[in-house]
């Protein structure tokens, strides 16, 4: 019960942060063609958070419920797979194949690097 509550509170926090980043990038879009920068930013940030939380669980006595709150709630709520896949398909539908491939590659590479950095820092 406690775990579900923490996951919920952290999940809402992650979702609101992601929406704030989305709105920021939409507001500062200018005349450049659309590219999902906001999704890249939250996916990298959330991957860093989950790396940190997994690394800290080992030796900080981070309780299982708090770990679930941060990993499943905050990192899970902050990051998104559906916006990433839908944006990729949208770029393909606009025949912007290079932008679509870049979207796939940059999220994966930067996300993996951020998770590894989080794990390393939690060391």
């Amino acid at each position: 019960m406690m775990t579900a509550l923490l996951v919920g509170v952290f999940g809402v926090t992650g979702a609101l942060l992601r929406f704030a980043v989305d709105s920021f990038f939409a507001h500062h879009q200018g005349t450049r063609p659309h590219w999902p920068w906001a999704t890249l930013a939250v996916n990298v940030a959330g991957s860093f958070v989950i790396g940190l939380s997994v690394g800290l669980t080992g030796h900080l006595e981070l309780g299982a419920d708090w770990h679930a709150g941060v990993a499943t709630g905050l990192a899970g709520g902050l990051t998104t797979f559906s916006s990433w896949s839908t944006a990729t398909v949208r770029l393909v539908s606009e025949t912007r194949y290079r932008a679509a491939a870049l979207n796939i590659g940059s999220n994966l590479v930067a996300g993996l690097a951020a998770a590894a950095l989080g794990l390393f820092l939690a060391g």
Partner: protein
Amino acid sequence: MKSVLDERRAVPRPGVPGWKAWAAVAVGGLIGTELRFCAGLLFPESAGAVPWTTLAINVAGSFVLATLTTIWIARPKTAFWLRAGIGPGLLGSFTTFSALVVVIDQQIRGGLHATWLAYLGLSLVLGLGAAAAGWKTGKAIADVRGGAQ
């Protein structure tokens, strides 16, 4: 006059979203996160095993979001708070990128190279395939509705 107003509505200048949108994202985010949490309780992903639950969540969420996105492109008058609550709120929180990344990280560290390559490949093919299928489905629904009007 009316056409000018319609045009403004069709090409909105994105400003700071109103409180309704934030509230909808919070509610959607709560539902999406708890749904993902409950799916994890019903179909637990033990450490070291292939996380099928995360994969299924991401595939399902991609299909629904892509479907709704094309419907909303065809129907731009759908209230912004509703789109925000269901899209970035519910579906954005339901699906997850961090769980996918951390699992692949652990599989790479464990030397399970065939496993992480297969899992990454499956996530890409099924996730993007679901989004593409959703994109086509949404277009078909929008076309049928548009034709009926």
